[in-house]
């Protein structure tokens, strides 16, 4: 008996094949992204030889001799590292001499990075525009693999669903709070800084595009990206001076919890969330940078005086919603049994004045499921001030009216 020769199907790719490939690409991209998130959150001592070698290589690429290296324990220590090492303010490119020979090293290195951004970042931005942003609702981006199974393009999923978590974890939750802190404490001391491990929302993201094969880089760009990636893997912020380069160590402690987008966010209810060896850093709860009192001593007075809603919410949750409504003396508008949640009450309070960023009431509810310790968690939701009673308020949170909400059969 003879068997028919199997037909080669090399050229015939089915939609299922394409989806499987896209799924593999997205999984690979997720792994690479997570590696870079880990680099951004790393609290290991800097790899000084690797950092110095990579930074010297960047100097060589702009035809400058390798600088002397001055290591500091944190970015906050950089401005006091010495008069000659104090980083210069960033000169505007159009205010610089025509000839590159006359440029400060910082400007040359800034231009080097800008060129890479232009060649890689702009290509990506253009592709994103082709796909359009409107297909992806924000909440959908939390399920990248599902998006691929539904037929979304891998490059689109990587840019809209995977990489935002890297940017939010590293740039938005670490770099920006640290920079704001540094500027608040010391004016603008930094001039042109490179961000090492906290710059992985660029170098790391480009690496994701490159290693998944979704973007082909020119060889010279790829080589340069290797150098930026090596810096990102080995040290913290650095200031490229003409003769001296000030480089910061990484933090010694970074505490996080997981963020809804698949990334991480600074979180510690016991000391600073980010701490450098010299004590510099910040406190944070679930990704919100908070003053120390929120952790150590939240009181209704401090909460009432705090202008930032997010910080106020963190402080109240530290204190507990019940304790807060009692200590702050909030006026109870009414209470009612929570339908579908036997034994639990809905309570509606008036919130004083405009302290919540607009006139509002507070609905205090009880979770339908027990916590590990057997208790049910209470939580507060702000609702419009013209809701008359707790039932109407609870109904409003789901876009229902009181009669509909009263028919709730079960809450878990």
């Amino acid at each position: 008996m003879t068997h028919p020769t199997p037909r080669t199907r090399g050229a015939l790719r089915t939609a299922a094949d394409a989806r499987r490939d896209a799924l593999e690409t997205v999984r690979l991209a997720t792994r690479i992204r997570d590696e870079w998130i880990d680099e951004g959150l790393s609290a290991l001592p800097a790899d000084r030889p690797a950092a110095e070698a990579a930074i010297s290589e960047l100097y060589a690429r702009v035809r400058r001799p390798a600088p002397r290296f001055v290591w500091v324990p944190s970015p906050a220590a950089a401005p006091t590292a010495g008069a000659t090492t104090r980083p210069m303010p960033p000169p505007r490119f159009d205010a610089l001499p025509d000839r590159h020979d006359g440029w400060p090293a910082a400007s040359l290195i800034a231009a080097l990075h800008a060129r890479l951004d232009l060649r890689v970042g702009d290509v990506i931005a253009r592709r994103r525009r082709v796909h359009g942003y409107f297909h992806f609702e924000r909440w959908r981006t939390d399920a990248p693999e599902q998006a691929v199974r539904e037929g979304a393009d891998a490059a689109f999923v990587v840019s809209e669903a995977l990489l935002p978590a890297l940017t939010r974890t590293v740039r938005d939750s670490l770099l920006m709070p640290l920079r704001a802190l540094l500027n608040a404490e010391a004016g603008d001391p930094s001039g042109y800084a490179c961000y090492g491990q906290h710059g992985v929302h660029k170098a790391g993201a480009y690496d994701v595009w490159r290693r998944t094969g979704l973007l082909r880089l020119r060889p010279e760009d790829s080589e340069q990206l290797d150098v930026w990636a090596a810096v990102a893997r080995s040290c913290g912020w650095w200031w490229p001076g003409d003769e001296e380069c000030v480089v910061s160590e990484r933090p010694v402690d970074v505490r996080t919890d997981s963020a809804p987008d698949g990334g991480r966010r600074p979180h510690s209810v016991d000391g600073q969330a980010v701490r450098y060896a010299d004590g510099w850093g910040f406190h944070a709860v679930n990704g919100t940078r908070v003053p120390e009192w929120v952790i150590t001593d939240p009181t209704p007075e401090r909460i009432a005086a705090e202008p930032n809603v997010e910080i106020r919410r963190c402080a109240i949750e530290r204190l507990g919603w019940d304790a807060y409504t009692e200590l702050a003396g909030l006026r109870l508008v009414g209470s009612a049994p929570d339908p579908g949640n036997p034994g639990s009450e809905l309570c509606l309070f008036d919130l004083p004045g405009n302290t919540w960023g607009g006139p509002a009431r507070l609905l205090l509810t009880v979770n339908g499921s027990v916590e590990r310790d057997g208790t049910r968690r209470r939580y507060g939701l702000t609702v419009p001030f013209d809701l008359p009673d707790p039932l109407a308020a609870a109904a409003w949170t789901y876009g229902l009216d009181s009669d509909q909400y009263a028919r709730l059969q079960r809450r878990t």
Partner: protein
Amino acid sequence: MPMTLTLSDLTRQTGLDVLDHLEMDAAIPVLDGLQAQGDLIVVPLADLADAVTVEDRARWRPVPPDGVEVLRGGAGGNPHTLVAEPLSCRWTEDLHDRDGLALGVLRADRPVHLMHPEHGASGIAPGTYAIRRQREGRGPMINRSTHTYVYD
């Protein structure tokens, strides 16, 4: 399959995990009315006739064996997952919601379940339902610009 399942039946069948302090062996009621699961609510579509409309050309897709992740939660990233026996439930996200709260609409021919690691499972009787999320807000009721979604 029996009409009522327990949480341990469901975790075995779906491979989805729930926290081990939840009641594993109690039957999960299968209900045809409103049910809330943390920051989500399941509402019979007929009750929302003036608020939620499914597009005429909506793409309905079968709920796959590993379920549809309806919404991923806040800290810890716990998802609400819709699970169903094969070919017994379809799901669409092509809809309009006056309040912008509906995540999707499900159409079940047999009982289906919405699962969450911290909240356990909600049994949903055959029928058509919208799943909406929860919001909070300030200002007057009529002003929609200050609303935010709740992540529990």
